């Protein structure tokens, strides 16, 4: 039985007067892949961002309830910089910095105080190896990351997250801008990464959630309709709304 990485209690989130998350109560297991699915605007990305307090950056956001990470309430006394180091994020569109491959990866560790060149070299190589990108970029570390393909750029972004040694990786539709081969590479990578990292992924691709996640949460209009083992959600969901959504009969 996996330990819980997050315990979310009575979480509500408002954008001004609009309630985007309603009474969310779930636990997210450590070292597992949890998929968040649901139609556009259902709150899944908003929920993802509550896990490293990215929503704090949006004006007018109000949050109630508790999010415990390793039994510590991240909405209580919490060092947000440290939180975002522990809980990294990968976005829909690859967003490498306009700098070299090496500098993209070493940027985070440098900010967190790593100065030694040899230590940075080690981190860059390990992160790129962990993101299964090393062999493709080892001869062009000093060249611009913008010259990489979309799939390589996304793996670079994952490597950049890994470089600061996080515990959790949040992924917001990380493959929706990628071709099928790059998508499968990222999926394989996620499968590897879950040995060391807790992964929470938002995806619109139902088959992807089925392929890579251990548990799946179905969001609808700001609520979690159903949260269970992926195998159960995709073979015999309990709620009719989940069934309608995953069989493509939802509108």
């Amino acid at each position: 039985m996996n330990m819980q990485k997050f315990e979310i209690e009575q979480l509500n989130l408002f954008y001004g007067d609009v309630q985007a998350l309603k009474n969310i109560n779930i636990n997210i297991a450590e070292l597992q892949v949890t998929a968040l699915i649901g139609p556009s605007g259902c709150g899944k990305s908003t929920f993802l961002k509550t896990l490293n307090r990215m929503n704090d950056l949006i004006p007018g956001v109000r949050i109630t309830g508790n999010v415990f990470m390793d039994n510590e309430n991240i909405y209580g006394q919490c060092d947000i910089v440290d939180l975002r180091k522990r809980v990294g994020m990968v976005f829909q569109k690859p967003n490498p910095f306009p700098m070299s491959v090496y500098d993209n990866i070493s940027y985070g560790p440098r900010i967190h105080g790593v100065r030694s060149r040899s230590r940075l070299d080690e981190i860059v190589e390990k992160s790129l190896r962990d993101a299964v990108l090393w062999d493709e970029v080892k001869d062009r570390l000093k060249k611009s990351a913008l010259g990489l393909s979309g799939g390589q750029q996304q793996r670079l972004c994952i490597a950049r997250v890994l470089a600061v040694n996080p515990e959790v990786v949040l992924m917001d539709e990380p493959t929706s801008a990628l071709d099928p081969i790059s998508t499968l590479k990222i999926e394989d990578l996620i499968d590897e990464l879950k040995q060391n990292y807790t992964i929470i992924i938002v995806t619109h691709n139902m088959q992807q959630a089925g392929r890579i996640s251990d548990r799946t949460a179905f969001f609808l209009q700001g609520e979690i309709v159903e949260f269970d083992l992926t195998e159960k959600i995709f073979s015999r969901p309990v709620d009719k709304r989940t069934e309608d959504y995953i069989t493509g009969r939802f509108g």
Partner: protein
Amino acid sequence: MVARHSFDQGLDDLHLNLIEMGSMVEESIDNTILALKNQDVELARKIFRNDDIIDDFEKRIEKKCINLIARQQPLAKDLRTISTALKIITDMERIADHSADIAEITIRLSGQKFIKPLIDIPKMAELAKLMVNKSIDAYVKQDIQLAEEVCASDDEVDDLFNKIIIELIDLMKNDPMCIEQGIEFMFIAKYLERMADHATNIGEWVVFNVTGEHERLARLFHKESGMDKHAEDSDDPAGTIL
């Protein structure tokens, strides 16, 4: 509600195909019983010919299922419906095979006087036929209760089978001249018993299709009774009788 027109049309077609195959199999059982009772060789030959048609039908449905899986990526109930169809057609095809097996024996026994009046074998055949009818009906109506009735009837067929086998053994012990025909009747009884098993399988798959649970029936009707069912995957009657 968003409709998936092409997919829904595909599922509707699949449903109709299964009903059509089911009615072909039912007709084949009816004819098998008639041919055996009346020692009607012509009808037995017809059953033989129809078996190939049913085999082809199975292949066509199988192809359709695989196509739907490959192109529509079904999930949940849709996936169960298609996997149920794939399982059911195998059971229906086997039932038709056993009809053809019995027809073959009917041809071999033509012109011979039976060693005993056929009483329990037609009774068993009627029961097996009823189970197949009901199982196909349960599929058509997606009726769990009817499917469970089919599964419950299997024990009755098994009891009749055991009774017939004991009677035939007695007959053969007393008169070695009965052995040749006695063995043929044993095969017939075994084929009928297997037909009932396949009908039970269909019933179980119907329950799975509706509820998503398959183990429940197995637990209710087989495991709890402590009965060791005949090898499910073996269709070799000789192997299980002898």
